[in-house]
């Protein structure tokens, strides 16, 4: 695979009223051709600013952004306009032209690219079929639902057959049902047309549904990135853990943990569950070997990209020495983390994930 988008040490700072804000801090990421790459973060994390450097709507203060081998951050004027025609963009608020009907909205980038009337007609018809809106060609945006508007937005973004599609919170203004439809459409864009998609969202579910790789941003920097499976199954950074635990419910929240503690006074450990080649019953073996009783108090197993992963929170009952030995035994098979004792004053994150 070759590189579609490369961010090389990208930093961006805004100065207003004498105060400088660092929107991006030394971001380096690579998006391979043909993949769907999700950038997730809370609002203000800098993810939209990063996305907008891809078509130079924002320019880095330092560093380079390279799209399809060309340093877009260095282009100006006509060269920049031509490069932007090769990059489709989808917006949270759709940004359709209200004064033009659906046909003319999708035709707009084709006119910019200099296509003839006949070529434009063919291409728009093809796009309308692809997004399932052939009957809406003459409708105006105000007559469409949110989901329909976004489908027009996607058709418009694809009109010039771009290699790269960037999506800024494309589903954040839509209801869950419509979100599903738009995500399915984006997946088809990727699979049928081979378009590389870089998307930004604050909804981790969108990334989980759609993306192959993910980067987590916080305070202008990428704090963690990797394949969806790796990041979701073993999130390292606290922000990543917050995102992951909001959609994958195998890790108890602070409230759930407090309730568990009220009943279960023994030592609690969290066992990592993932795809395993062997299928040996390690939990009961360890229990017997060390004379420790095991009580499953919380947990769950999810499927992600066809692979299993999750965690179990178990209470180990026995002498301290026996429990220590049992933990050591479990560690031979999987990742084990012990939750701190109930009276220890710890923050939510530490309590859950320590």
């Amino acid at each position, binding site marked *: 695979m070759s590189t579609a988008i490369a961010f090389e040490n990208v930093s961006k700072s805004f100065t207003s009223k004498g105060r400088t804000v660092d929107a991006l801090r030394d971001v380096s990421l690579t998006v391979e051709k043909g993949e769907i790459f999700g950038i997730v973060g809370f609002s203000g994390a800098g993810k939209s600013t990063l996305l907008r450097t891809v*078509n130079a709507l924002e320019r880095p203060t330092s560093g380079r952004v390279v799209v399809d081998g060309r340093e877009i951050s260095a282009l100006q004027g006509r060269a*920049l*306009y031509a*490069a932007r025609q090769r990059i489709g*963009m989808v917006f949270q608020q759709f*940004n359709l*032209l209200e*004064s033009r009907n659906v046909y003319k909205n999708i035709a707009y980038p084709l006119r910019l690219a200099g296509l003839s009337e006949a070529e434009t007609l063919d291409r728009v018809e093809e796009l309308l079929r692809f997004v399932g809106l052939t009957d809406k060609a003459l409708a105006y945006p105000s007559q469409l639902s949110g989901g329909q508007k976004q489908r027009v937005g996607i058709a418009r973004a694809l009109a010039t057959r771009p290699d790269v599609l960037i999506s800024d919170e494309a589903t954040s203004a839509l209801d869950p049902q419509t979100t599903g439809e738009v995500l399915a459409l984006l997946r088809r864009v990727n699979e049928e047309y081979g378009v590389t998609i870089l998307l930004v969202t604050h909804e981790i579910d969108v990334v989980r549904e759609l993306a192959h790789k993910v980067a987590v941003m916080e305070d202008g920097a990428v704090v963690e990135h990797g394949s969806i499976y790796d990041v979701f199954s073993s999130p390292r950074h606290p922000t990543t853990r917050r995102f992951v635990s909001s959609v994958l419910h195998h890790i108890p929240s602070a409230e759930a943990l407090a309730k568990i503690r009220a009943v279960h006074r023994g030592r609690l450990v969290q066992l990592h569950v993932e795809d395993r080649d062997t299928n040996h019953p390690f939990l009961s073996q360890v229990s017997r070997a060390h004379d420790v009783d095991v009580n499953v108090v919380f947990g769950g197993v999810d499927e992600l990209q066809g692979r299993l992963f999750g965690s179990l929170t178990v209470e180990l009952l026995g002498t301290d020495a026996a429990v220590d030995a049992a933990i050591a035994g479990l560690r031979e098979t999987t990742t084990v983390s012990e939750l701190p004792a109930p009276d220890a004053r710890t923050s939510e994150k530490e309590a859950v994930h320590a």
Partner: protein
Amino acid sequence: MRDFDPNAFFPRFWVAVGETGIMVVVAFAGAAVIGVLLGLLLYASRPGNLLQNRAIFAVLNLVINVVRPIPFLIVAIALIPLTRSLFGTGLGPLPQTIPLIIVACVAIARVSESNLVAVSPGSIEAGAAMGASPARVLFTIVVPEALGPLTLGLTYILVALVDATAVAGVLGGGGLGSLAMNYGYQRFDWISVGIVVLALIVLVQLAQFLGNAVARKVMHR
């Protein structure tokens, strides 16, 4: 109160309608062209916009702010020397369109600017993202997107122009204003005044109706 004499009134009335019509149409056409262009320039030169130019913006802004608060009557009087030098006379509907154009075009410039500024930044950004040059964004996105409210704004100015022609008429332009003043009021002929008032109401209704119809056609929300 004098007796109303239709045979004497109506010939004058139709001439006056014609004169008012000429003043309104010519002044509106001239002011719309100049005013919309000024509005575009004002919008484009605004700091942060595509042709940002502090000097142009500041000068335009100042000129508009100086002309706008002056009552039309005063502008029309102050411009009498100019219209005389241009037309050789201050009398008749055409010379009187000069002050009408000047007053209306600054109002239109302001109305245009505020309608252009109100265009959704998202639409503009979408144009830039699709690779349209700033000038292309201005003419193929900003202007069409602003056209609906702009038409309504222009209609408002058109109606205001009908109002101002009455003043211009009294100052030598002729038309319905001077008919009501000189033939009606000064002769205590209130029926004539009443007919002129009715005619003006009809004229304004017509202008507003036309404006609304055009706006409906160009607006799709």
